[in-house]
């Protein structure tokens, strides 16, 4: 009988042992795939958040702006630039921006701020500034009214902890007050009604601004108040102006929230003495695959007049990419620890199997089976076990990841707050099936391959008399 047939038969003559060993490989593959899918899915989600809400995948900039982002490194926007860009069928629109710095002042208070001139309507195609407007505020009066309402005592007791806080999303407000999803439909309408905050947006040509919630707090400003901006304009001119605050936005990162001032792009150009100038033109694209982006970099880039150039999301978000890479390394360490646990699990099972079969191996060699044949049979048994475990792990992980991809894990409690505070949805999506699937399986296969060395070595080193006594 051929070795492969003997090995297969041996496996199913000791079902329990086989199932235990296959299970150890199965769980190894299953958890490795799930963990990696979640990790890669989270990175992907984070990138999408940043790219799709701020930088976009592609921008047109003055070639010096990235290294020296001053108001002097702007470019003159012309309809020809737009036409050239929009000729590409993958571009749906181009969003203009004018970005600079200024000193903001209110009364005796001053602060350095980031001034962002945007097209109020077009910007919604790319980032969600409108969505970040403060919608709810827990003022003293609001809290007083809510305490008189039918809210449970547990919720009422938390209100004072968040006095003065403002929220651009009902989700964070709900999390702060510790309201469970099951109770939200009954309780949140009461809170929303009382805490609702009236906020305005900006429109082209009007000298109005949106400012970050923390910046407003620092400068002791509110809606309707006036903000003074002073800075250096284009080619050494002085940029100075008074602006009415029409809205307060709550930005995800405190750093941005502490310094952001949005104003209409035309008003911003006027402030800096650079009419018709932009610092960047962000492209809204339909297909964001690397292949398409690379193609667009080449084709549109070629047609851009000097000193303009195309810049893609990787270059714009180099810092974020570096952070992700370092996080990926620590994720890699976690995966390595998982592999180590997996390896010990598999090795433990193989060790147990080898000790359990020591006498059997001894008898087989004593009655005439060559050690090489025995080692080949045991190796084949392990290979079958490895294959069964890996294939079943993939078979179960595959639909689980597909389901997870369409129904991402929704976080709750403190974890959700951390995500929300960084402006990200509190969800952990799974990465769609990709090359990582193959790699995880190959790594587990290698672990099984290494584990085979132990029984094979034991067979070749076997002392027959000792084995027969085992």
């Amino acid at each position, binding site marked *: 009988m051929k070795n492969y047939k003997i090995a297969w038969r041996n496996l199913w*003559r000791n079902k329990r042992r086989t199932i235990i060993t296959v299970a150890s490989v199965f769980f190894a593959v299953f958890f490795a795939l799930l963990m990696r899918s979640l990790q890669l899915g989270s990175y992907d989600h984070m990138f999408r958040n940043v790219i799709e809400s701020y930088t976009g995948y592609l921008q047109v900039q003055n070639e010096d702006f990235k290294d020296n982002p001053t108001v002097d490194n702007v470019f003159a926007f012309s309809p020809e630039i737009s036409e050239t860009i929009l000729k590409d069928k993958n571009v749906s629109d181009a969003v203009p921006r004018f970005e600079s710095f200024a000193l903001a002042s209110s009364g005796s208070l001053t602060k350095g701020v980031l001034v962002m001139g945007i097209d109020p309507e077009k910007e919604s195609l790319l980032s969600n500034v409108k969505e970040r407007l403060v919608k709810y505020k827990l003022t003293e009066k609001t809290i007083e009214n809510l305490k008189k309402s039918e809210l449970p005592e547990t919720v009422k007791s938390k209100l004072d902890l968040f006095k003065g806080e403002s929220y651009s999303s009902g989700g964070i407000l709900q999390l702060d007050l510790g309201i469970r999803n099951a109770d939200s439909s009954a309780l949140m309408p009461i809170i929303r009604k009382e805490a609702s905050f009236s906020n305005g947006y900006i429109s082209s040509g009007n000298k109005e601004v949106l400012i970050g919630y923390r910046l407003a707090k620092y400068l002791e400003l509110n809606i309707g108040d006036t903000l003074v901006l002073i800075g250096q304009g284009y080619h050494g001119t002085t940029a100075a102006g008074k602006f009415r605050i029409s809205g307060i936005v709550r930005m995800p990162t405190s750093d941005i929230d502490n310094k952001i001032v949005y104003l209409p792009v035309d008003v911003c150009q006027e402030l800096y003495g650079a009419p018709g100038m932009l610092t960047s033109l962000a492209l809204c694209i339909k297909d964001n695959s690397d292949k398409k982006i690379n193609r667009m970099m080449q084709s549109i880039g070629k047609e851009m007049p000097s000193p303009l150039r195309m810049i893609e999301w990787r270059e714009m978000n180099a810092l974020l990419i570096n952070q992700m890479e370092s996080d990926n390394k620590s994720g890699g360490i976690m995966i390595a620890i998982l592999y180590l646990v997996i390896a010990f699990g598999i090795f433990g099972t193989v060790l147990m199997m080898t000790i359990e079969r020591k006498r059997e191996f001894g008898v087989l060699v*004593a009655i005439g089976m060559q050690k090489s044949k025995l080692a080949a049979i045991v190796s084949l048994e392990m290979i079958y076990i490895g294959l069964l475990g890996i294939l079943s792990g993939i078979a179960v992980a595959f639909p689980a990841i597909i389901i997870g991809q369409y129904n991402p894990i929704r976080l709750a409690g403190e974890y959700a707050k951390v995500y929300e505070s960084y402006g990200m949805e509190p969800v952990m999506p799974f990465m769609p099936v990709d090359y990582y699937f193959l790699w995880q399986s190959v790594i587990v296969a290698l672990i099984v391959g290494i584990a085979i060395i132990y029984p094979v070595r034991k067979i070749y080193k076997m002392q027959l008399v000792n084995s027969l006594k085992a």
Partner: protein
Amino acid sequence: MKIIEIKNVSKIYNESEVQVNAVNGVTLDFQEAEFAAIVGPSGSGKTTLLNLIGGLDNPTSGEIIIDGTNLAKLKSSELIDFRMRNIGFVFQAYNLIPVLTAKENVEFIMNLQSWSKKERDERTFELLKAVGLFERANSRPAKMSGGQQQRIAVARALASRPKFVLADEPTANLDSKSASTLLEIMEKLNHEEKITFIFSTHDARVVKMAHRVITLEDGKVVSDDVRE
């Protein structure tokens, strides 16, 4: 015809710093179709001597020549092959392969020797009938009694028509009825197949049936009686 020659064989084990002479200068010959028993108290070297004759262990000194082949001159793989073709083993603890049925255990060596299926089946059923377990051909060892397992072990040892069978205390774990049945079977097969049987034993019934009784003490042969 002489099939086994043991020439001044010794086996010394080094246990810590104490040397143990398990077999001490033994010289013996065995003829074809002998039914011999090696007796002696525990620790007298019976099992060690059988292991040396079977090539399961190497002597410290001396030579073991089987049918003209000096075991010491064989490479490890050649020795395994030699055992498969020439020696049958019956162990005290049966040592059947647990994952194989009775039939598969018996035909295992024939499989290793690449016998045809027809030849294997004929020989296996012949032996299973001889040991009275034809009906249990498809049973696994765990489902059989000790006596039945030892009978299967005898059938396995004889399957490829070896030159001799080494049986290490084959009746030690059996009740008296099973032991008697086993001995009768072995004596019958010895007679019919002209295969040499060498036992190590404490069992008086084995000694009584043996044609030759070799007594060991402290690893030395103290008597070698041949009965007519």
